[in-house]
């Protein structure tokens, strides 16, 4: 366990090796996107249309989604590990490859959690945002969301092996999923044409959007947790099996 903790620590240091200054552009962009997004939802929700969510709930939803964006839809180094040569590093160490991926990812979250999430959480009252979860089941749901995120990410990594390192293609598909199917940008319940009834059962809806709906109290925790657990039970064995079969097909040319 200590080895994995050290791996996380290394990943955290790697992000800040060049100095905190180099993280600033990303932080500024995040802040500059979050604030207009809050006002966008204020403008939209001021129409008074009943969508099963109040304005304050929607703003909390958006705020928490942005603050915890790394956890809402997990993205590990596996996305570009073949072209960037990370793969060679992972296989060269006496540790589980998937275990290292998890450690590296969690360690990589720390700088943003410290430099963006924490200050913005402290500043949340200025924006009139409540960061108190409607249910403490949110934390269990967040854990299941992260766990499912890792499983889905491993499946995407296997897809990139299958598609001969087409990282660009994979990243574009992921972006599409984040934008529409995960519910982190728009709550699934907001989708028109009856999409919300179908889409809420797919695995991507059990990522960030599911946890956020518990956070703001628009979903029954039991139903959400049940779905998240079911998808974890289905996708983790599938991810491990596919990963085991894909390993021999890995080709790395980067570094």
């Amino acid at each position, binding site marked *: 366990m200590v080895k994995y903790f050290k791996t996380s620590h290394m990943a955290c240091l790697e992000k800040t090796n060049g100095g905190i200054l180099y993280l600033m552009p990303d932080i500024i962009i995040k802040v500059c996107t979050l604030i207009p997004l809050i006002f966008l939802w204020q403008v939209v*929700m001021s129409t008074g249309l009943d969508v099963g969510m109040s304005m304050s709930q929607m703003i909390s939803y958006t705020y928490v989604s942005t603050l915890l964006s790394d956890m809402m839809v997990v993205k590990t180094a596996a996305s570009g590990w073949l072209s960037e040569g990370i793969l060679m590093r992972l296989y060269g160490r006496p540790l589980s490859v998937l275990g290292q991926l998890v450690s590296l990812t969690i360690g990589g979250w720390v700088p943003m959690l410290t430099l963006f999430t924490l200050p913005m959480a402290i500043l949340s009252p200025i924006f009139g945002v409540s960061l108190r979860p409607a249910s403490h089941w949110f934390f269990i749901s967040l854990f299941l969301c992260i766990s499912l995120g890792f499983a889905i990410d491993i499946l995407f990594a296997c897809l990139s092996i299958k598609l001969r390192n087409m990282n660009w293609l994979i990243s574009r*598909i992921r972006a599409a999923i984040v*934008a529409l199917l995960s519910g982190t940008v728009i709550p699934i319940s907001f989708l028109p044409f009856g999409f919300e009834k179908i889409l809420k059962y797919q695995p991507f809806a059990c990522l960030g959007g599911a946890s956020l709906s518990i956070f703001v109290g628009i979903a029954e925790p039991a139903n959400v947790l049940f779905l998240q657990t079911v998808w974890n039970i289905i996708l983790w064995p599938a991810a491990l099996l596919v990963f085991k079969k894909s390993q021999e097909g890995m080709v790395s040319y980067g570094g």
Partner: protein
Amino acid sequence: MEVKKAIKRTISLFAISAKLDLVWLLRDTKFALAAILADAISNISVVSSVYLIAFRFGGIGGMSVDEVLFMMAYSTIVTGIFILFGSGNNIHISRIIGRGQLEHSFMQPLTLRAQLLTSGFSPFTGSSNFIIGCALLLISIYKLHLRITIWWILLLVIYILSTMVIIIARSYLVSSAAFYAPVAAEEISSTAIDGTWQLSTFPLSGMPYFIQLPLLTILPEGLMAWFPSLCLLGKTPMNFSEYYPLIYALIIALAANYIFRRGLNYYVKKGSNRYTPRGFRR
């Protein structure tokens, strides 16, 4: 005569890039088609998320659903042109600078400008978003019953060009940092372009002035689709001049030109430190 020769040469360079793109499509058709499809799906999902909100709420901040569709069409066309002409990292220029690849361009018997202008042209695999954008534009024009004149089409082209100038100039402006800090600033153009992409699809109508103003000046995301779309619809926002995007494009292009040239001068004297003598990247 010299101008005519230069134009002819530029066209032939575009043709070479197009040929290379076609070769990829023919040689690796399955993956090339998958990449085209993924590109189209990704962009459609980004713009459709805003459109779906507008549809569900009957518009956004005074903009009707069809006006939002028009704005999304504009945004998709801009994305399309970006991909069409920028597939070779020639707009994400910090990657080329940061990786020390500018050296490769110096060895070519062509000006750097000509190479950067033509090297990213991919009409066969990179045109899907542009085509989708044009289709969305036609649908929105039909739904909005817009009266199309030659002047309006010319204005559309001018606005799209000015948006492209702003995107490219901003990318080159921030990418100049990569001349001085190649490792740290290698991906700075991605932050400037891709990081703000979502923000550029937000309709700013109805938002307070203190949000709109910085998004038209400091961080010009309002000029990527919202402002020019409203100008084209005859509803220029915030009492600004309809020529504002053009003026902004000119100023940022001049600033980028000056800063980039200074960085380039520094680079040709100092070189790149990204590679060890044995060829490994630092």
